[in-house]
C-alpha cells in the first residue's frame, strides 16, 4: 500500500506538471489505466519502456468503450478532487486577480455557477470564482508541462537510473513504472493501438499515439482535411459589403478642398515657371534645333499596299441598285404644283404605311434653316439594320460548269486531213483587184478576172500566166466561170453589161478539144439566125448575142452577150448548156438564164421581192436558187413554181453555194455570218458561224468528193471548214473549222473576193484585192 501511495504522489506530481495538456486532450484513461497498472504491479521497474508502452496500449484498447464518454466529461473524481483541493488552496490569489464580475450573473446562473459567495473582511459579499479550466482553446500558455531537459541524447543513457532526466527546475523526472513480465509478454504479443515503439523523452513512458492522433494521421494519409470541425466551404463573410447602398451611410457633399486649387500643385507650377523664366528649363526646343532634328530623323513610310495586286472584283458582288435622282417633290421648297392638297394628305395618311406610294409627303419650308431634323431617321436606320440582319447570307452558287465541257466534241483538225494549209503558188500579173477566180474542170488552168478588165489563164502549179485578154478598158471583170464539162474548154466572163464566152488560147489544149469548144459556142448562131428567138415583137429582147469583133475573136473570145445592167454573177448549169447571170441593179431583169445552144436569154421572174444577189442551179435536180438580200428562194424550173424559201436570217446575203449532194446550202453574208442550211431540216440555218471580222465575200463547197468548204472574207482570210454530210438522213452534218488561211493583204477594206476549189485535190485558189491569186495546198 505504501508503494501505491508513492505511486499516487508521483502521479499527482506528474498530473500537476502536465495537467493542461492532459485535460486538453481529454485523454484521461491512459493515465488512469497507468495508475491502476502501477497500483497493481507495484514497483516493478526492471521492465523496459517498450513493454510498458505495449502494456499501456493494450489497456487503452480495452478501455476504448469508455474513453469517449470520459473524454467529454468533467475530470473523474480522483483527479478532480485532487485538483479541486489544490485550487481551493490557491483561491485567495485568484480572488484578487478576478474582480468586478457582473452581479446579475449570479441570479441567472444559479444552477451551475462557477463562484462561491463569501464574506470579505468588511462583511461584504465576495464572489470567489472557480479555477478557470484551461481547456485547449485557452489563451493560457504559461503553464508548461514537465519538459525533459536532457537534450538530444539517447534515453538509454539513463537506463541505470531511476529517473529519466531533469525538468526545467532541475528536478529529476522519475521513470514511470513498468508492467510485470506477463503483462509485457501480452503486450509484446498484441501490439496496442497507437503503438509507435518510441519512448516519450519527457515522461519516459512509451509514446503511443492517441485515437485522435491516429485519426489525424489517417486523414493526412488520405489527403483529407486534418480537422473534422473545420468546414472547407464556409459561408463568405462579407466584411465589406458588395452591395452598393442606395442610401449610403454617409452622403456628405464633396469637401470644399476638392474644389480649391491645390496649393501644392501651384507651388510645383510656380517652381517650373520660375525655372522657365530663369532659363533653366526650355519649354520647347528652339525652332532651328527642332528643324535640324526633324531633318535628321528620317521619316519612315510604309507603303502598306505596295505589294497589293489589283484584285478582280468579287464575282459575287452585286452593286446596290441605283436610286433615281431626287425629284422636285423631294425638295425642301418644292414648287406649288408638287405640294399635295389637303385631300391628298388625308388620303395618304389614311393608307397603311406599307401601301403608300411614297413614304413621304412633299412639304414646303420657306428656308433651308427651317427644315426640321429628319424625323424618321431612327426608324429608317432600324429598318435598314433589320433588313441587313434578316437578309439571307447564304451565297447562291452559280452554275459551276467547265466551259470546255460545253463545247461540242469536235474531231481534231489533224484527223480531218487533207485540207489546204499554206500558200504554195502566188499568181502575179493582175493590176488592181482580182475579182473572180475559177479552176477549169481538168484542174490544170486557173482563170481570173480583175479590175484591170482582163481575163487571164494561168498554169495552176507554177503560176505561169499562159493567156490573157483585155475585155474592157474601163470596167472590171466581175465574174469568170468555166463551163463545167471536160469535153469543152469554155470560159464565161462578165464585164459591165457584157458576158463574154471564150475559148482561151492555151497551147496545151488539143486541137480537137479546142474545136469542140468552138463548135458548141458557134452552134447557137445558126439557131438564132433561124429566127427561133422568142421575143415578142416590138419588145426589146432581154439580151443580145453577138460576135465580139475580130480583134477579140483572135484572142479566143467568141461570143458577147449584152444584157441591160451590170452582171455580177455567173453560174453554170452542170450540163453546161445553161448559165444564169445576176445583175443586182437590174430591177426586173436582174436574174437571167441563158441557153448556150440557142443563144437565148430568158428572164424567169417578173418580179422579185428584194434585190437579187446571186443565183445558182441545183447540182442534180431541176431546181433554181435565187438569193435576194435576205432570203433564198428555190424554184422548180419544170413546174415553174416556188418550192421553198430559205431564210438564213442574214441581213445581206453575199453568196451561197449548194452542196454537191444537193440537200445542204452554205450562205455567206456581208454581216460576217456563214450559215449552213439543211434544206430538208428547216428553212432556218442549221448552224451559224461568225468567225470573220469582216464581210464574207464568197463561199464554196469542194466538188471533188472531199468534205470541205471554204469562205473568203474582207478581213483577208480564207477559212477552211470540214463539213461532212452523212449519208444517213437522220444524222446531222459535222462542221469543223480546220484552217484559217492568211496571206492576202487587205486593200481599201477589201480582202479576198473569190475562191475556187480544185476539182479533185484539197487545193484552192483565192482572188485577193491585193492583185494576187494564191494557190493553197
Amino acid at each position: 500500500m505504501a508503494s501505491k501511495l508513492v505511486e499516487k504522489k508521483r502521479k499527482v506530481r506528474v498530473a500537476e506538471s502536465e495537467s493542461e495538456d492532459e485535460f486538453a486532450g481529454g485523454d484521461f484513461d491512459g493515465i488512469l489505466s497507468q495508475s491502476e497498472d502501477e497500483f497493481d504491479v507495484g514497483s516493478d521497474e526492471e521492465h523496459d519502456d517498450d513493454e510498458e508502452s505495449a502494456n499501456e496500449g493494450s489497456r487503452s484498447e480495452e478501455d476504448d468503450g469508455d474513453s469517449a464518454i470520459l473524454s467529454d466529461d468533467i475530470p473523474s473524481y480522483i483527479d478532480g478532487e485532487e485538483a479541486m483541493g489544490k485550487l481551493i488552496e490557491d483561491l485567495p490569489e485568484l480572488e484578487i486577480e478576478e474582480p468586478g464580475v457582473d452581479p446579475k450573473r449570479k441570479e441567472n446562473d444559479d444552477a451551475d455557477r462557477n463562484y462561491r459567495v463569501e464574506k470579505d473582511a468588511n462583511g461584504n459579499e465576495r464572489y470567489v470564482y472557480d479555477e478557470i479550466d484551461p481547456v485547449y482553446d485557452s489563451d493560457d500558455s504559461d503553464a508548461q508541462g514537465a519538459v525533459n531537459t536532457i537534450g538530444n541524447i539517447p534515453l538509454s543513457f539513463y537506463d541505470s537510473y531511476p529517473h529519466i532526466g531533469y525538468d526545467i527546475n532541475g528536478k529529476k523526472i522519475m521513470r514511470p513504472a513498468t508492467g510485470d513480465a506477463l503483462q509485457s509478454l501480452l503486450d509484446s504479443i498484441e501490439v496496442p493501438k497507437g503503438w509507435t515503439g518510441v519512448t516519450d523523452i519527457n515522461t519516459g513512458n512509451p509514446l503511443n499515439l492517441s485515437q485522435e492522433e491516429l485519426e489525424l494521421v489517417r486523414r493526412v494519409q488520405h489527403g483529407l482535411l486534418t480537422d473534422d470541425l473545420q468546414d472547407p466551404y464556409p459561408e463568405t463573410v462579407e466584411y465589406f459589403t458588395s452591395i452598393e447602398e442606395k442610401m449610403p451611410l454617409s452622403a456628405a457633399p464633396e469637401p470644399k478642398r476638392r474644389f480649391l486649387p491645390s496649393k501644392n500643385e501651384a507651388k510645383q507650377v510656380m517652381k517650373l515657371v520660375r525655372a522657365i523664366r530663369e532659363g533653366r528649363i526650355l519649354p520647347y526646343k528652339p525652332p532651328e534645333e527642332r528643324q535640324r532634328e526633324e531633318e535628321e530623323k528620317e521619316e519612315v513610310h510604309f507603303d502598306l499596299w505596295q505589294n497589293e495586286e489589283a484584285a478582280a472584283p468579287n464575282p459575287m458582288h452585286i452593286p446596290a441598285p441605283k436610286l433615281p435622282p431626287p425629284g422636285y417633290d423631294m425638295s425642301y421648297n418644292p414648287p406649288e404644283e408638287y405640294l399635295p392638297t389637303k385631300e391628298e394628305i388625308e388620303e395618304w395618311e389614311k393608307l397603311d404605311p406599307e401601301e403608300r406610294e411614297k413614304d413621304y409627303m412633299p412639304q414646303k419650308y420657306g428656308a433651308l434653316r427651317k427644315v426640321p431634323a429628319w424625323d424618321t431617321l431612327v426608324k429608317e436606320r432600324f429598318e435598314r439594320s433589320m433588313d441587313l440582319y434578316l437578309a439571307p447570307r447564304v451565297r447562291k452558287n452559280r452554275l459551276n460548269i467547265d466551259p470546255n465541257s460545253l463545247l461540242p466534241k469536235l474531231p481534231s483538225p489533224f484527223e480531218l486531213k487533207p485540207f489546204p494549209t499554206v500558200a504554195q503558188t502566188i499568181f502575179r500579173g493582175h493590176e488592181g483587184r482580182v475579182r473572180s477566180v475559177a479552176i477549169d474542170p481538168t484542174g490544170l488552168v486557173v482563170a481570173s478576172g480583175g479590175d484591170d478588165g482582163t481575163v487571164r489563164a494561168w498554169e495552176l502549179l507554177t503560176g505561169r500566166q499562159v493567156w490573157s485578154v483585155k475585155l474592157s478598158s474601163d470596167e472590171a471583170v466581175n465574174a469568170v466561170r468555166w463551163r463545167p464539162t471536160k469535153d469543152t474548154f469554155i470560159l464565161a466572163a462578165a464585164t459591165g453589161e457584157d458576158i463574154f464566152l471564150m475559148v482561151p488560147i492555151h497551147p496545151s489544149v488539143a486541137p480537137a478539144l479546142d474545136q469542140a469548144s468552138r463548135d458548141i459556142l458557134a452552134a447557137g448562131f445558126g439557131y438564132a439566125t433561124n429566127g427561133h428567138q422568142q421575143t415578142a415583137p416590138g419588145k426589146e429582147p432581154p439580151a443580145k448575142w453577138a460576135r465580139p469583133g475580130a480583134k477579140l475573136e483572135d484572142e479566143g473570145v467568141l461570143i458577147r452577150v449584152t444584157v441591160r445592167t451590170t452582171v455580177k454573177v455567173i453560174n453554170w448549169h452542170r450540163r453546161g448548156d445553161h448559165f444564169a447571170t445576176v445583175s443586182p441593179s437590174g430591177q426586173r431583169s436582174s436574174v437571167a438564164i441563158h441557153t448556150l445552144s440557142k443563144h437565148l436569154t430568158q428572164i424567169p421572174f417578173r418580179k422579185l421581192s428584194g434585190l437579187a444577189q446571186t443565183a445558182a442551179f441545183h447540182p442534180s435536180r431541176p431546181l433554181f436558187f435565187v438569193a435576194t438580200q435576205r432570203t433564198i428562194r428555190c424554184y422548180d424550173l419544170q413546174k415553174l413554181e416556188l418550192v421553198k424559201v430559205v431564210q438564213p436570217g442574214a441581213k445581206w446575203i453575199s453568196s451561197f453555194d449548194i452542196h454537191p449532194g444537193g440537200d445542204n446550202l452554205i450562205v455567206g453574208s456581208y454581216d460576217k455570218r456563214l450559215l449552213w442550211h439543211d434544206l430538208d431540216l428547216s428553212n432556218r440555218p442549221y448552224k451559224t458561224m461568225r468567225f470573220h471580222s469582216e464581210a464574207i465575200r464568197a463561199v464554196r463547197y469542194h466538188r471533188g468528193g472531199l468534205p470541205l468548204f471554204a469562205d473568203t472574207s474582207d478581213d483577208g482570210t480564207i477559212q477552211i471548214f470540214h463539213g461532212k454530210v452523212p449519208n444517213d438522213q437522220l444524222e446531222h452534218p459535222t462542221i469543223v473549222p480546220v484552217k484559217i488561211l492568211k496571206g492576202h493583204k487587205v486593200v481599201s477594206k477589201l480582202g479576198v473576193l473569190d475562191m475556187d476549189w480544185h476539182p479533185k485535190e484539197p487545193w484552192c485558189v483565192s482572188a485577193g484585192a491585193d492583185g494576187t491569186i494564191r494557190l493553197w495546198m
Partner: protein
Amino acid sequence: MEPRGAEPGAQVKVTFTTTEADIQLPETKRQLLVPADIRRYGLSRILNSESMLDTGAIPFDFFVNGSFLRTSLDEYLQSNSLSLESNVTLQYVRSLIPPVYEASFEHDDWVSAVDVLSGSSPAGRWSGDAFQHGQDRILSASYDGLLRIWNASGQVIATSSSGSHGGHIASIKAAKFLSNTQLASAGMDRTVRVWKYSESDHFSGDLKPTLELYGHTGSIDSLEVDGQSKRILTASADGAVGFWTTSKASAPEADSSLLPGAHLSKRRKVTSSVSAAQRGPLALMSIHNAPATAAVFDPRDRTVAYSVSQDHTVRTIDLTTSIVVSTLTTSHPLLSLCAIPRGTSPLLAAGTSARHITLVDPRVSATTTSVMTLRGHTNKVVVLSASPDNEYALASGSHDGTCRIWDLRSVRPATKDEGLGSVSEPVYVIEREGRDGKKKAIAGDGYKVFDLTWDKLGIFSGGEDKKIQINRGRDITI
C-alpha cells in the same frame, strides 16, 4: 545540271563499221579506245593513219545511231545520256563536201529544164567514143520556148529556133540530151521534138529540129530519154505516158487530128520554114486519171518504166507490152520521180505536192511500199535527181526555191504527227543565189526551182529566177 565535261584522259570504246567494201577495216582493228573529247576530224585522222586504213587523207564522216556526229564524242554521249563506258558504234563514210555555189547562167525567161552533157552524164556515156573530153555542154529549156546550149564557161553555143521556124510554139517543160549530137524537148505545145545538135567549133553550134512527135493532148511535163535504145518517155497532163522513138523510120504516123492546122478554125497557122518530120508515139498509155507528172526508165531494165501522177499513184509499166504491171497508191499527189538504182530493183523517190519526198519500193513483193519520207521542203517537190556517185544520195528541187541534198542513210523514226515510217532530213540546202539577205519569200515566190540535174560536173538547177545555178556536184556524198 552542271555540264559534265569528260575528265581529261577519259576514253570511249568505239567500234568502226562501214558499208563500203573498199575502206573496210580488218576485223581486229575495228574496236578502239579513243579520247572522249574527239571530234569528227580526229576520228577521221585516226582512220586515215597508217595503222588503220592507211588511206592518206580521205575525209570521213561518222554516223552514230543514224545521225551524223557533229559534236565531240562525249558531248554526243551526254546529250543522249549515255555513259562514257558504253560502246559506241561509229559507221564511217566518206565525208560530204558542201555543194558550193559556182556560177549562174542568166536567161530571158523562167528556166524550166536543165540537162548536162559530160563524160559522166548518161548522154556522155551513150555517146561513147564520140564524146570528146572537155566537150561539156549544158542544155537549158525556157518558158520562152527556146532551148539553149551552153558551154561550161557560160556562153550560149546554140539556141533553138522559135515557134515560127520549127521550134516549140509554147513553153518548153522538159529537155534532155540523147547524145552529144541529139537531144529531145517537150513542152506545153504537147509535142516532143527531137533536135540534131552539131558544133562547128567549140563556140558555136546549131540546133536543127529533126522530128516532131505528136500524140499527147495535154502539156508534157516530163521527158526521159534512153540514148542507147533511142527511146523517149514522156508524161503529160492528159494523164498519158508516151513512149516514143527518135528514129524517123520506125516511128508510126502521127494522129492527123493533133497536127497543127488540122482544123481550119485554128487561129494560128504555124508556117514552119523548117519542115520536120511529124510522127506519133510507139505507145501512148492513158493510165492515169489525173495529170501524169513524171515517167522514168528503170535504171537497169530499159523495158520497164515507172510513172507518177497527181492521182496519187506510182505505176510500173512494161514498155514492151504497154501494160501497167503494178500500181502503188500513196496519200498525196505526186509531182516528180527518180529511180535510185539499188540491187535488182530500184528504189523510187517521188516528190509530192505535200512538201515531202516519199521513197517507194516498187516491187510487188515488198511488204511496205513507203520506205522512208524525206521532210524539209516547204513547197511542192517538182524535181528529183539521184547522185551520180552513189546510191544513197538524192537531190531535190522544189517550188520553195531550194534544192536539198539528202543522204538516205541518215534516218530517224518519224514523230507522231509525221505518221509512220522513218524520216530523213536534208544534209544540205542550196538556196537560190541572189536572194541572200532578202526576206524569205512566201512559198518561194519568184525563186521556184523547176528543174535540177546532178552530175559530177555540178548540180544544175533552173528556176523562176531565170537562171541556171551551178553548184559543186562532185564528192558531195559518198
